[in-house]
Each structure stands twice: as structure tokens, then as C-alpha cells.
């Protein structure tokens, strides 16, 4: 059923609306998903090149020594761990685990900080 588009204004400025911790987890899940989705074709391409020949493999390995590439790798590792942790949180809530608000807030903090922790670890190792 179509609702006639109202000519009335609405208040919808996300910068002025408070976002609780779970909201950050959720938007992070979506944003990291998109980042990872963009990273997949690139990864497949790198896989392809690295398996072609000795020279191609060397090229790919050399690329990973470059700082900007390492930086991107750290960001993608953050994306992967946030997405993974948020996904597991989602999965558990599907089994009715961690549904009440208090528990949900704790797990949201864990996911948000966990992702960052892994990123820092990765940065420490790679950079």
C-alpha cells in the first residue's frame, strides 16, 4: 500500500541522535561486511597471480612489503575480526543467548573492543 509522501519535514540527523553501543556494533557489522566484500575480488586476483609463476609470486610477495599495502591489510583484519565477532554475537542471539539488554550491551562492548584489539595486534606484527 502506497503511503502518500508527506510534505512535512522530519528530524533525522544521525549526528544528533544518540547511538547506544549495540548500534555501533551493528553499523560496524554492515560497514565491515561491505569492506570485506570489496576485498574478496582483490584477494582472488592476488591468489590467481601468486599461483601463476615464480615471478608473479615474487611480485605479490614484494607488494606485501609496502607500507600502504600493510596498512590496508591491518584495516581488513580489523574488518574481519569485527565482522566475525559481531556475526557470532548475532548467531548466539538467534539461539536466545545474550538477548536481555544488560547482556547484549556487554557483548556489544566485547565485540567493539575485541575488533580493535585484533587490529592493534595485527598492526604491531605487520607494521
Amino acid at each position, binding site marked *: *500500500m*502506497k*503511503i502518500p509522501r*508527506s510534505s*512535512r*519535514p*522530519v*528530524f*533525522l540527523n544521525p549526528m*544528533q*541522535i*544518540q*547511538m*547506544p553501543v*549495540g*548500534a555501533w556494533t*551493528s*553499523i560496524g*557489522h*554492515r560497514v565491515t561486511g561491505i569492506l570485506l566484500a570489496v576485498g574478496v575480488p582483490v584477494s582472488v586476483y592476488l591468489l590467481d597471480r601468486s599461483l601463476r609463476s615464480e615471478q608473479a609470486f615474487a611480485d605479490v610477495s614484494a607488494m606485501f612489503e609496502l607500507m600502504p599495502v600493510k596498512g590496508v591489510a591491518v584495516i581488513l583484519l580489523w574488518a574481519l575480526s569485527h565482522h566475525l565477532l559481531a556475526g557470532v554475537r*548475532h548467531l548466539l*542471539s*538467534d539461539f*536466545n543467548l545474550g*538477548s*536481555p*539488554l*544488560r547482556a*547484549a550491551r556487554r557483548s*556489544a562492548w566485547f565485540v567493539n573492543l575485541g575488533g580493535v584489539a585484533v587490529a592493534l595486534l595485527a598492526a604491531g606484527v605487520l607494521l
Partner: protein
Amino acid sequence: MKLSIFRYNPEHDDRPYMQDYEIELVEGDRMLLDVILRLKRQDNTLTFRKSCREGVCGSDAMNINGRNGLACVTPVRSLKEPVVLRPLPSFPIIRDLVVDMTNFFKQYHSISPYLINPEPPPEKERLQSPAERDKLNGAYECIMCGCCSSQCPSFWWNPDKFVGPAGLIQAYRFIFDSRDRATQQRLDNLNDAYRLFRCRTIMNCSEVCPKGLEPSHAIEEIRLKMAKIPVKGGGLEMHRPISPK
């Protein structure tokens, strides 16, 4: 106390603006509603809904310092100043803090919020054991104030197709009512890509509910019931409501 309040009068204003106010708090001021009612004596064009002044009608739901809540049960002295009052997000604004709740109620009506039982009514009442009645705890208390749905990003993006947390917690209330006989129809009614499944468990709804209810948990239980997974039952948890600060 300094306040900054959203103003918009379609008859004179092209676009909304924020207006600053200043008012001395008096001893009787406990809740935000007390203050804005006195503010109305300073400026009688300030418009907002209010009725019961005790947190049971849901009329004075608004966005207080970024977080939805009821003005009549939000303690005023602990609010960060300047207190920023805006209307409920994403609902069309009629004037100042008064919003158009038509779509919100349309979603509510769409879940058939009434008992469906074709069996002839017994002489006194349809019987229900205390255990069965307990299953409705944490859902029947909903006052349809709109705080939850207007803080839900999924409801912002698809208000015409996603039922929203308020409608869904009411759907829960009827799905899990032992006296209702239309359970499967209610579940089928919600079973498409949008009506229930736009919920991404962001949980803003449970965060802001001024009655401490948890629509996000209700939605999960409906999902489990749709998948025919046995649900724990025994009602939903409630928590101490978290007021805007």
C-alpha cells in the same frame, strides 16, 4: 536551566529551527514535563502533546538530548544542559514537537492487535492459567509511545514496510496469548522480507523503551516460533528504564 527546543510552524516557517529558552527551576520541578509546561507560560506558542503526566499514556514521547524518552518520567535536574528537545526521529512533523503517528499506528493495526478466537465465548471469561498469563509479561505493558520505533534505523529506512519494534512486541503479545487461535496466521503475516526480517538486532528499541521493555527479545522469540524451535516462554525480561541524560 537552559533549553534548546525544536520549533516549526508550517503556517509561518519555511523550515524548522532551534529556539533557546532559559527558565529558573523551582522546587516542584522534578520531571522535564513540569519544566516545559511552565515554559509554555513564557511562550504559549510552544506545542507538544501531554496527558497523564505519569508515564502510562505515551503522549509526551520526544527526543531528549539525542535519546527518545517520555518527558513526564525523565528527571530534569540530571539532564545535561542545554537540554536539547527534538521531535521523535523520522516521523513527519506537524508542529514543534508534535509528530504524525499515522504510519506508526498503521503498522500496529496491520498485526491484528486483538484476540482472534472463533469459539463461542464462555459464560464468564476465556480461561487462562497464571503460567499462561505470565507469558505476556514484558509485552502487554507497551504503551505505544513510539520511542522504540523512532530510534530504530531499520524503521527509518523502511517505515512503510517494516512493522517496527512497537508493532512487533504487540504481535508477540498476541502470538503468545494462549486464548488466541490465529497463531499461524499471525506468523505467516510477518513472514516476508520486510515485515519482521528488517530487524538486524541493533537493539536501540530496548535501550530507549521508557517502560523497560525489550522489543528486540520479543522479535527473537517470534523468529524462533516461526522456525518451530521451542521457545523458553514465561514472559520477556524487563530492565530498569534508562532515562535520557
